[in-house]
């Protein structure tokens, strides 16, 4: 007898067994299983080195051999266990066939190139409902706030060179102008505190002189060493 063995990828021993019976256009019965047993064994022999699930193939092979023996020698006495095993194999193969058919139908659906898309925008409407946390009072929040401040990451000290990129007088002038337009008055001390480097203090000073000259602001100091106040004119 000549075996024509096509090397294919099988999903497993049941897949191979199903293909073999279907190739022969056989229904799944113990007799048909007996018929494909030799072919099944031949496949294992050929594929041995490439089979990932060799032990599963061998397990099915042993059951097929029992089936074949029983078909060839009807007078062969099988133990109850052996009989159950071969009955089970038949049933399992039938069930497997059912799912293979179902898989084909799923494949048809899957190949339609038609699919639905859910919304995945994460854009939520701006609707809020008051829902305060339980057991929270202002003392608790205050303690938490203090703790957070204590644990606050320390300001990184940047190297002097980086800070030295000085503000230009022009920039400072427009900054002070804007601030004055908004607040009408400004403390000179505030400008000093805000300065990131000594050079910025000098620039601020020059900017104020420029604005004085341009009559944009006037300067007030009520007493020696008291706060100098800039006022918009």
């Amino acid at each position: 007898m000549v075996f024509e063995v096509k090397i294919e990828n099988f999903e497993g021993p049941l897949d191979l067994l199903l293909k073999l019976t279907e190739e022969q256009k056989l229904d799944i019965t113990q007799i048909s299983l007996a018929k494909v047993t030799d072919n099944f064994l031949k496949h294992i022999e050929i594929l041995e080195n490439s089979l990932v699930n060799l032990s599963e193939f061998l397990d099915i092979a042993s059951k097929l051999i029992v089936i074949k023996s029983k078909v060839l020698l009807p007078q062969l006495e099988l133990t109850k266990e052996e009989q159950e095993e071969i009955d089970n194999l038949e049933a399992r193969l039938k069930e497997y066939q059912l799912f293979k058919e179902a898989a084909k139908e799923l494949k048809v659906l899957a190949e339609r190139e038609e699919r639905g898309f859910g919304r995945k925008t994460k854009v939520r409407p701006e609707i809020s409902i008051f829902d305060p946390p339980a057991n929270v009072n202002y003392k608790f929040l205050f303690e938490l706030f203090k703790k957070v401040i204590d644990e606050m990451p320390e300001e990184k000290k940047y190297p002097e060179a980086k800070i030295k990129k000085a503000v230009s007088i022009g920039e400072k002038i427009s900054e002070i102008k804007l601030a004055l337009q908004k607040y009408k008055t400004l403390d000179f001390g505030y400008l000093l505190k805000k300065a990131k480097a000594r050079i910025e203090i000098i620039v601020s000073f020059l900017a104020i002189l420029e604005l004085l000259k341009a009559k944009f602001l006037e300067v007030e100091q009520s007493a020696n060493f008291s706060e100098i106040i800039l006022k918009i004119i």
Partner: protein
Amino acid sequence: MNEDLKNIIESILFVAEKPVSIKELSKLTNSLTINVQKALLELTDDYKERGLRVIRKGDFFQIITAPEAAKYIGRFLNQELKAQLGDAALETLAIITYKQPITRMAIEKIRGVSSDTILRTLQIKGLISEVERLDAPGKPILYGTTFEFLQYLGVESLDELPKLEKEKEDKIKQAFKF
């Protein structure tokens, strides 16, 4: 009034961007589940001829785009329409579809081979997920199909899928005691 409930449910499903259960909807709207069910059925029906669909799995509902629009949505979202699935994946998916919820062991028993990798692939693709744990030693995971799976196939619910041949199935159950 019933019209109102339907509209509210529609807007919740729109915002939710994920399946919402009848129970949750009835709680949110202070309505009887029977009324929610009715509204959902009507909504599903209203959507039949539109660009959107209401899909269902079990007690959960979601609004998605109509499968007919897939080409355009794919273009708009710059998204691939369908990931190709191999035979092993389809076979495993079919088993889970018709036998869910099901454990890995039961799947492997049917397929006759270990199915670890395939289950992981299907999970990554979002087509199946762990739905619960079996109340048995080791609490094995039970797998089921997802809403993503319904979207992937472009069907409204599992009921739309072809039935496993009932006759055959019954015969198998008789022969093959689980």
